[in-house]
């Protein structure tokens, strides 16, 4: 994780990661009964996640990349050795960090999102998955 302080005093964090986007969901059937759905992730590409006080951006040179306000993020969770972010437009991005801890990023993202919600007067976040919920 790289930490940088801008001229205006705000702090920005970034890290390199293998970035993959959900491309489909498939049904899981067993003995003729639908058990549920699982996501299919597309190919991973090297990219970067960058966060500051207000936004998170994912850059991997592909169409899904972009920048979102923390208030737009739908869910945050660590999945095994990756971090998953649910984004507007029913998009899901998975970041597998190269030499960093998904737990550390999960804590950082959750703290920034909590601060953004409280700063916007939207209450205290009580749950970050399956969707961000305030209490």
């Amino acid at each position, binding site marked *: 994780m790289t930490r940088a302080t801008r001229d205006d005093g705000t702090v920005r964090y970034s890290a390199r990661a293998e970035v993959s986007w959900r491309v489909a969901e498939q049904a899981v059937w067993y003995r003729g*009964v639908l058990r*549920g759905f*699982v996501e299919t992730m597309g190919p991973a590409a090297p990219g970067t996640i960058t966060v500051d006080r207000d936004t998170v951006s994912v850059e991997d040179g592909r169409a899904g990349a972009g920048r979102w306000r923390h208030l737009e993020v739908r*869910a945050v969770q660590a999945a095994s050795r990756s971090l998953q972010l*649910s984004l507007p437009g029913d998009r899901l991005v998975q970041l597998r960090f190269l030499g960093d*801890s998904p*737990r550390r990023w999960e804590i950082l993202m959750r703290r920034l999102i909590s601060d953004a919600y409280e700063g916007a007067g939207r209450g205290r976040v009580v749950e970050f*998955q399956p969707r961000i919920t305030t209490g």
Partner: protein
Amino acid sequence: MTGAWYPFFRVTLKWVGLALTRAKISGVAHIPRKGPFLLVANHESILDPFLVQGNCPRTTHFFAKSTQFTANAVFGWFLPRVAAIPARRYRVDPQSVRTALRALERGDGVGIYLEGERSWEGELQPFRRGSIRLILGAGVPVVPCCVSGSYDAWPRWTRSRWRAPVHLRYGEPLEFGVHDTRAAREAALEACAERLAGALRELRVEPPPRPWPTGGGA
């Protein structure tokens, strides 16, 4: 609808789990002999499913994170055969709840790791509110189950396994009644979560002092 593989794999899980942990098991008699039930457990380690599901004598459909089903072809084949229910954690997943309720209607058990993921620090984490709503809506006996020491044997943040005393204890079934309206479930949410956390803490066996500073997951 679990097929012939389930009993085979359940016994396999049980013996693999016991071989890996030498866990001390108690309270299996608390699991109802017939009828639907919910088995709710804490989640400290990847070892937990071997112990909790392997030692439960009834067919129990456990929620499992959806990414496990696509981790590789072996998991994709294996998990439905041990009655795992894929749960998408990045969105509300009504299909996983429907599958669980159907299993209860058939008289099977449904297993939930209430924290929704393995603990990073070996301590009980806040429970998923969706899981508590399912418990309140289902209105079936709830068997608490606490795994103690599996975090010390194989914490989430390492690939190394250590030798540590592991205990698995099933508790007496709890009744929460049927809360068939959303308002009723929301009103009972906090009290239900507190009661379940209390039941799990009562079953917990405190591990010996850890050889590493706590909070090492970050």
